[in-house]
């Protein structure tokens, strides 16, 4: 069975897409924050069973709010086979923030470029292939309200799960000063093999630099914690 998580900013049509994929009728609202707990449904595509989890809508993946933590924990701990990031095509600037965070988590991301009809209506032109190339992940235009593009999305998810999608690891640079810090922390983290096999080391390093409380708690037990703290202090 393929485990798929749906994630995206609030009110981008995530639950609507979830209903399209699973045939369920979860409550959809024109209103942010309708999904606060994760919901699960099933979808069979080309004989493959997919378990689809609808995560709460979030702008970010910090440890500040419970719904963001629920979403992040699911991706970090449960490690779904594919993470479908639903992006509002009419507001890429804000939506891609979450996408970058997901890439940092080294999740197997497929971007659903939703509200594609509105994109066209508003006269916005998006080079989908270029976007896919720059992010290093597949990008599929969808219209959740009509179901347009949903079959293509299923195909992309299936391919991604089986590792057939062309995908390259894109590392978004933070600029020399920050990168130098990340490198230093990362160098200590990789010494702890149990930690670095569980979480992406670069992600851990970034979160530690951001003083993320939840991640810090997880790392505190590491035998290299003192060394990490030493590096972080500087």
């Amino acid at each position: 069975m393929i485990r798929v998580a749906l994630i995206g900013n609030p009110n981008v049509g995530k639950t609507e897409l979830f209903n399209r994929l699973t045939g369920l009728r979860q409550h959809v609202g024109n209103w942010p924050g309708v999904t606060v707990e994760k919901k699960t449904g099933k979808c069979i595509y080309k004989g493959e069973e997919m378990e689809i989890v609808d995560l709460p809508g979030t702008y970010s993946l910090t440890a500040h709010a419970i719904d963001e933590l629920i979403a992040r924990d699911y991706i970090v701990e449960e490690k779904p086979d594919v993470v479908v990031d639903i992006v509002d095509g009419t507001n890429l600037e804000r939506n891609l923030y979450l996408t970058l965070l997901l890439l940092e988590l080294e999740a197997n991301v497929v971007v659903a470029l939703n509200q594609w009809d509105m994109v066209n209506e508003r006269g916005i032109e998006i080079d989908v292939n270029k976007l896919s190339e720059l992010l290093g992940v597949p990008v599929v235009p969808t219209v959740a309200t009509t179901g347009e593009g949903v079959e293509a999305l299923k195909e992309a998810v299936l391919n991604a799960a089986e590792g057939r999608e062309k995908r390259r690891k894109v590392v978004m640079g933070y600029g020399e000063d920050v990168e130098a810090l990340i490198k230093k922390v990362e160098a200590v983290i990789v010494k702890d093999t149990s930690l670095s096999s569980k979480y992406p080391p670069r992600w851990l390093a970034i979160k530690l630099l951001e003083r993320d409380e939840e991640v810090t708690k997880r790392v505190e037990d590491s035998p290299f914690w003192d060394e990490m703290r030493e590096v972080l202090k500087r």
Partner: protein
Amino acid sequence: MSEVLGEEPEVVLAERRYEAISRILETVVRKREAKKLTFTDILDHVFLHRALGIPIFLALLYAVFQFTFSFSAPFSDMIDMFFSWLGGLAEEGVMPANPVLASFLSGGVCAGLGSVLVFIPPIFMLFLALAILEDCGYLARAAFVMDRMMYKLGLHGRSFIPMITGFGCNIPAIMATRSIENEKDRIITILVNPLMSCSARLPVYVLIAGVIFGSSYAAGAAVFSMYLLGIALAVMMALIFRRTLLKGLPAPFVLELPRYMIPSPKSVILHMWERGKWFLIKAGTFIFAVVVVIWTLSTFPWGATSGGEIIENSYIAAFGHLIEPIFRPFGWNWQAAVALFFGFLAKEAVVGTFGALLGAGEEAVDTALASAGWFTPLTGFAYMVFVLIYFPCVATIGIMLKELRPKWVLFAATYTLVLAFIVAFIVIGVGHMMGME
């Protein structure tokens, strides 16, 4: 580390991410034409207007309740007639063979449960109206407009979204507070949420308002005033909590407004059904159980009450007289007191209790209650106010226990009870000053 970057690392990293996004967008996105003024922009000029925003919201809310009140009345009457007929049938058909069963069917099931089910139409109408407002995108604006006011008062802006959800039911509303980042803001929002009048309280308002004001516009206005009072009290209590127990500044927040759209009938109906079905499930299980308990207590000891006819000799009367003194200053009799007691479980049970206690098979609960003369306009209105405020229902307490530490839940239960007494006293006091009885 902060010295190296010159600022909080979290802020710096977020900035760098946005820079990276701009670089991506430069190569990927091209706009064909300059941004036109969209339909949404035009509507927002009106609905989000600084001065008109709140009056528009209140006017729409008023329209919703008048709509709910007047359009549902004929349907309610039909359900009423059905249960009265059924009750009469049970009495005639079963009475000779088994008087206890006959009393149970007519007094317990038909009068008790029937009195609650009569409120299917107003509750579904309310959900229909709210679903339309929500799906078209207005409800998010209402939250925004209220936010602006609340933020000025030092309250967290995000709080109003869960509060508007509270008009349906406080349980999903309390769960929706999870999106509030600051823990203090979240606690405040949960604590005041039960003051937002949920749909379970609507039957009580509709019943009492109908009894004391008849089916006039005054009744609709009285129901509307309960919702206003709920909002006002929620804002007031939130302010008090902010200044005393949970000091601090509200966290800044961004509320994204969805675009306006014409709601699809399918989605609206589905929406109404999703929420309304909980009322049916509750009525069929929980409320039914409560009604059975009330019927049992009001009919036994069988010999003394002769099947509930002489209710003064029943167990429930004994219990009612025990707690009545607490409510005597408000002018409520023991039956009203008992109804409040069972309302702890679920507010609809207040109506169910009146139904079972009045037990009249042929008469509808509202006409029976009106002719019983238990409420004057003043005591009835105070009763509505009390039902609005006192104690969140058991299910809400349950969800609060999941989201808050027990001491806060205990606090919520206590302060709402105290507040209910205070506000109801004020209503009675002001009424007396105005020469009402």
